């Protein structure tokens, strides 16, 4: 098991290297640079800036310099937020985004899973139809529509919850952004769970469990759900990535200082190091989550072994 984890982590290194290389050069292909303003800077100032940030060197040299500093864990200075290094920016924002994303993921799993199971048990009855209709709505309505509506009702009309701000991650501040972020995932998880649960409930071994007079809980949770949850587990990898990167809109609407907005700002400002930093961090998360998913899968299904 340990050997498997280590080999998986080692095999992530070439992947990361490729990602860094491709995005480094791709970004440089885009026209413009970090210091191009509407009114151009004086030539001397520009030259000095370029010198400080090594932009006067050849692209190849810049690439090697960047690679070297990344290997020592330094993502370099931000070109736009001049007083901060990328490491400092992430140290502040990454924990917030992680808290937001993981809470949304947990909520999506709990609520989506529950709704999916209920719908499967009441297949083709009104409960099933309403859950699935709600799920379709959840997927189709974009979160920049859901967020203002929720804010309007819960924050402005009733005044129960703050309409924005992070406030150090206080519970009331988290409710609206987490719910908004989780809604489309709840819908997806509910649909996935329902589908595999219906299949599981029809399977022969669940019939055996019924024929042997086992309680409803044992039949549904112990024998049907454990197998039915496997497709949902596979979905966790992409879902985690989507939650982490998809939080841009949510962070902007609710004014949360997370990592998502750096994606957009970094790209618009040609803040090379910031974009590279976010790409690497997100890539790391995707890799780690996929590993966790595979380990979870092996825990749930004894037929999957890594030795």
């Amino acid at each position, binding site marked *: 098991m340990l050997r498997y984890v280590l080999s998986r982590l080692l095999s992530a290194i070439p992947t990361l290297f490729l990602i860094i290389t491709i995005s480094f050069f791709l970004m440089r292909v885009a026209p413009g640079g970090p210091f191009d303003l509407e009114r151009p800077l004086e030539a001397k100032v520009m030259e000095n800036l370029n010198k400080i940030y090594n932009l006067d060197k050849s692209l190849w040299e810049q690439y090697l310099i960047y690679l070297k500093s990344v290997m020592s864990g330094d993502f370099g200075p931000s070109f736009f937020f001049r007083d901060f290094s990328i490491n400092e920016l992430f140290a502040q924002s990454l924990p917030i985004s992680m808290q937001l994303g993981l809470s949304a993921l947990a909520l999506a799993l709990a609520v989506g899973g529950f709704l999916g199971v209920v719908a499967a048990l009441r*297949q083709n009855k009104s409960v099933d139809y309403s859950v699935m209709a709600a799920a379709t709505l959840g997927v189709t309505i974009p979160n920049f529509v859901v967020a203002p509506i929720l804010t309007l009702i819960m924050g402005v009309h009733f005044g129960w919850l703050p309409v924005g701000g992070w406030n150090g991650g206080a519970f009331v501040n988290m409710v609206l952004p987490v719910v908004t972020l989780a809604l489309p995932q709840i819908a997806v998880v509910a649909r996935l769970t329902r589908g595999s649960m219906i299949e599981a409930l*029809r*399977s*022969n*071994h*669940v*019939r*055996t*469990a*019924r*024929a*042997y*007079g*086992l*309680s*409803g809980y*044992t039949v549904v949770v*112990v*024998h049907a759900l*454990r*197998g039915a949850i496997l497709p949902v587990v596979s979905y966790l990898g992409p879902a985690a990535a989507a939650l982490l990167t998809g939080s841009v809109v949510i962070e902007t609407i609710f004014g949360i200082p997370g990592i998502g907005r750096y994606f957009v700002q970094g790209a618009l400002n040609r803040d090379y190091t910031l974009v590279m930093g976010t790409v690497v961090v997100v890539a790391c998360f995707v890799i780690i989550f996929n590993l966790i998913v595979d380990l979870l899968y092996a825990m*749930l*299904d*004894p*037929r999957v072994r890594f030795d």
Partner: protein
Amino acid sequence: MSKINENTVLEIDNLKVDFETNTGMVHAVKGVNIHVDSGETVAIVGESGSGKSQTMMAAMGLLAGNGITHGEVRYRGENILGSSIRKLNKIRGAKVTMIFQEPMTSLDPLYTIERQLCEPMVEHGEYTWASAKKRAVELLELVGIPEPARKVKAYPYEMSGGQRQRVMIAMALANDPDVLIADEPTTALDVTTQAQILELMADLQRRLGMAVVFITHDLAIVERISDRVYVMKSGEVVEEGPTKEIFGQPKHDYTKMLLDAEPTGLKSMVPDSNPIVLDAEKVRVEFETETGFLKPNHVLRAVNDISMEVREGQTLGIVGESGSGKSTLGRAVLQLLPNASGRVVYQGNDITGASKKKMRPLRKEMQLIFQDPFGSLSPRMTVGQIITEGLLVHEPQLSAKERDQRAIQALEEVSMDPAMRNRYPHEFSGGQRQRIAIARTMILNPKLVVLDEPTSALDRTVQKQVVELLRNLQKEHGLTYLFISHDLAVVRAMSDTVMVMQKGEVVEKGLAEEIFSNPKEEYTKELIAAAALKPA
């Protein structure tokens, strides 16, 4: 006829089962009366679709969601049909237990055998987890699983089909039931395993004294083990009585037809002067499985140096259990496996390792028919398209009209209405589909046909018809067959010579008559005994 009495444990009274479907109500069971006395073995017999399984499923509250029941099912006088799950759960799994047809999927793949054996024991309140675990080991020993203390920790995927069925039996016995319902418990198993499981059940019944309800389509089993028989046809019991009477003086036509369903007669011999169509020498097939970097690969020898010689018009029956390599041999002879070695001569041409291009004209003459009539016909093509597809490759000069003409001929040859050629496969029964598959082969006028378990997925009565059809076609066209099957009754009715295979080796081969009347090898004797053949 035995009457309901004080010994009756389970009584099914005027049971009706309907299924609500998109195309309207389907009446699966139409008022069935069955009773089971303590300690007796009752068989419910019928072909697929007769409602025999649904009757017992309904009685145990295991119908699919769209099933509706009427009538009463009484356990020791108390109605349990349509009662609450709580009340039902006091009886099922404790007093009345079940074994199912599908040993491979009836156990939960995610839990150990121990856990699944213990669950019903703990659930019904007789045991604690600790005492249930001890009993689980005893039960495995009782049903004849070697090393029970180790095997109890195994997962179902680590066991063979026969072992899994033994585990199911252990589970069924755990709470000392009054009635054990066995729904086709041996159908999915090899003949020798089948015999062992039946013996085990009979032995356990003698020792433990529960009643057994045996649902099956296999009359050979019924005659051997049951006291009384109910014969079911399209949702009704058409005849019932003691086994001896039913087998001795069957009254209903349907019963007579079932009893007469075993393929009979022998194939007339072919003169030795006929030319040799297929001559194979030392055919060997090996599969390599990778074990790891720099380690020697594990080599599985599926077929080990097998030779054969088949004359025109002859049938070579290849008999063996699953995993014996009989299907692999058939494919190797047709040059469908790249990893086969040995020499194969077809009509004087050495086709060993022949290129695809060289094989193409021969493919027309060398055809293959598969076991699964449901999976081997494309669901999106009409029967006519399916049958004539081979002509597009082998006789491209034909016009659409000529092809249609050939399709009509081919369907007539397999006794099907040519008007059916515009329909799709899903509209046909298993037997009809196998006829379509045969028509698809016959349209190419083949010389050598490899038949890979062509009758295994069919009911006995349909089997008999297909066997007769194949024999007639052979006589008419001078076909040469390689007939692969685990079913000895069918092989006996089809073959001139028989080859018995086990683990990739030939155990015994010779004339069919001699093998069946005077088997020499122990394994062959075992197979023949297990099949309980009637005299031909």
